[in-house]
């Protein structure tokens, strides 16, 4: 028995090969996975994001506005729109639709003309230091470049620049990357650990033969689905508590907003992952397939959500896919509540996409759930 039998080995190998061949879905996934991932990540990852949304707030009309805006635009990092009020700037930066607010102070023109080097305050969303890093460092070269565009009387004495930029990194003034990474980590870890829970739920029943008995009884598909999701929401919460505990004690993660709100929203996020898992479970023919489907989505979700690389740096199409991913929204919500102290109003734009995602996946799961053995 101890001797390695080549014949036995060959027979086993042949059997495995036949099984692989007769499971075209798994085969397709095995081939498609690396190709898709290479394509997605190869093009989507960009740690030097351009065209970041910025708002321009002017205390009074300035004749230098056009020159400054043009100079900022020329760096390629800023996509500027003029804001009408302070309040608009505040909501924009809290919701994440603006990463920068450029404040041109009152009396700016007069101070420049008198050579007093006034300051332009740039409020930056510091929750993700990587995203704003290149954009802010590009500012240093800008104050001198602007000189040439100034009226001749102000050009001569190059001793002090016409004006300065003051960058104020909001929410994360020390630009600690961990503060950005930890909320993101909460979401990705939660995604990976919860999705797999339900992925095997239906396929396992089918493979153990218990499905035949379940189908023989009067059960509704939606009952089966929800019954399989619910217990895992509790398990998900347990994970949330562990992750939050570790984050606050080990990483000194600040909790600026309402912890209760955070927990409520994370419940929704957990449900979205479980719903996706169970959808895979109904579509897949066996446990192997279901598991591969889950693995197939985890990495793209993680990367497209803006966890590993700046969301703003991805091309438009990749951002569109990212917007459909619950992890993207959950990450914004968690960062918003923990670091920015956001309330329900600010996070609402990120709540409904997760709810919609749950509805769509559960609908697909119920559609694919077969009430017969056909």
């Amino acid at each position, binding site marked *: 028995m101890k001797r390695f039998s080549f014949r036995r080995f060959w027979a086993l190998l042949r059997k495995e090969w036949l099984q692989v061949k007769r499971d075209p879905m798994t085969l397709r996934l095995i081939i498609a996975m690396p190709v898709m991932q290479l394509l997605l990540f190869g093009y989507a990852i960009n740690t030097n994001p351009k065209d970041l949304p910025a708002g321009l707030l002017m205390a009074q009309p300035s004749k230098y506005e056009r020159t400054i805006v043009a100079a900022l635009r020329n760096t390629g990092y800023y996509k500027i729109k003029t804001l009408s009020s302070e309040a608009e700037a505040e909501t924009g930066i809290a919701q994440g639709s603006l990463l920068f607010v450029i404040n041109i102070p009152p009396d700016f023109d007069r101070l420049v003309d008198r050579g007093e080097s006034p300051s332009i305050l740039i409020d930056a969303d510091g929750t993700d230091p990587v995203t704003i890093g290149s954009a802010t460092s590009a500012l240093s070269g800008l104050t001198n470049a602007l000189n040439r565009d100034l009226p001749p009387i102000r050009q001569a004495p190059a001793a002090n620049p016409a004006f300065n930029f003051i960058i104020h990194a909001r929410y994360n003034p020390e630009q600690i990357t961990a503060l950005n990474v930890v909320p993101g980590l909460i979401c990705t870890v939660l995604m990976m650990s919860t999705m797999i829970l339900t992925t095997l739920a239906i396929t396992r029943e089918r493979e*153990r*033969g*218990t*499905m*035949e*008995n379940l*189908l*023989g*009884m*009067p*059960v509704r598909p939606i009952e089966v689905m929800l019954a399989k999701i619910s217990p895992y929401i509790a398990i998900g919460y347990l994970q949330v508590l562990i992750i939050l505990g570790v984050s606050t004690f080990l990483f000194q993660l600040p909790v600026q907003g309402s912890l209760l709100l955070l927990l409520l929203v994370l419940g929704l996020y957990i449900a979205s992952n479980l719903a996706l898992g169970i959808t895979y479970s109904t579509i897949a023919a066996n446990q192997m397939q279901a598991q591969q489907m889950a693995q197939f989505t985890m990495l793209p979700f993680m990367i497209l959500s803006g966890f590993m690389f700046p969301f703003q740096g991805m091309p438009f199409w990749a951002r569109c896919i990212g917007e459909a991913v619950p992890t993207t929204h959950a990450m914004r919500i968690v960062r918003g509540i923990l670091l920015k102290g956001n309330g329900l109003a600010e996070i609402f734009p990120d709540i409904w996409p997760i709810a919609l995602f749950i509805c769509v996946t559960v609908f697909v799961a119920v559609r694919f759930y077969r009430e*017969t*053995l*056909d």
Partner: protein
Amino acid sequence: MSGNGQDPVIDVRGLRKNFGERNVVDGLTLQVAKGEICGFLGANGSGKTTTIRMLCGLLTPDGGSGTCFGRDIIREAALIRRQVGYMTQKFSFYEDLTVFENLDLVASIYEMPHGRAAVYAIMERMGLTDRAGQLAGQLSGGWKQRLALTACVLHQPRLLLLDEPTAGVDAKARREFWDLIHDMADEGLTVLVSTHYMDEAERCKRIVYLEGGRIVVQGTPDEVVSNAGLITFAASGTGIDEAARRMRRAPGVESSTVFGHLLHIAGQDRVLLEATIRGDAGQDLSWREVEPRLEDVFIHLLSEKSTSR
């Protein structure tokens, strides 16, 4: 319609089911009366399981029509399901739940009004009370099968569909199982049961023999035996195994089988059979004519199938 006790519980006509190119059930017509125990017999792959699955709505027939308790098996499958107890061929309860938990789940799925009480009552009746807390996965084969039957009858169905319920179960447990089935049939429960065991077939009120997805023989066990028109001779003595092989090729012998220390040969032509036995004289065997048994008939049916194809 359902008020009339004379209506058959199962009434299907021309039932068909294909898996790919294969006609697994090919125009099956069957009536089963209330309180009847109907035995489903036939070789592996003859369509027994597929028929049972169609009757309880787990498979959609590709053709034919029919009713269970007057309800259409295609359009009203969900309603039929509530009144049917289906015992699968493979143990299909949760092995990681206890006996009680499994039964409690079933009671809840059927939304039984006094579910807990019903579970305790049926566990008492089926002798499962002592094992209520045991994990289903740790039960022996006989007890697993008893749990499965209990779960099937818990919601007080009007029809039991049992798919090889006693496969792999010892003789004592099988006898007890059938005693329970008879008790329940006496109370008015209709039972359709598939089996490979002849002793079980003999305990059915009516047997149906399937071949290639069609019914080829049906009737009471006695009718099936007499309609086969089989003449059977038995021999005992030394060398019956060798004689069995020799007889298989002999003229007039359609089946030749050893049962313990007896050799049975059967055929439909008495003259040829007697000539064969006379011709075999000189061997150390003593022949006598015996009543054909159900088993002879089925072996005859099975071998007829293999020679006709």
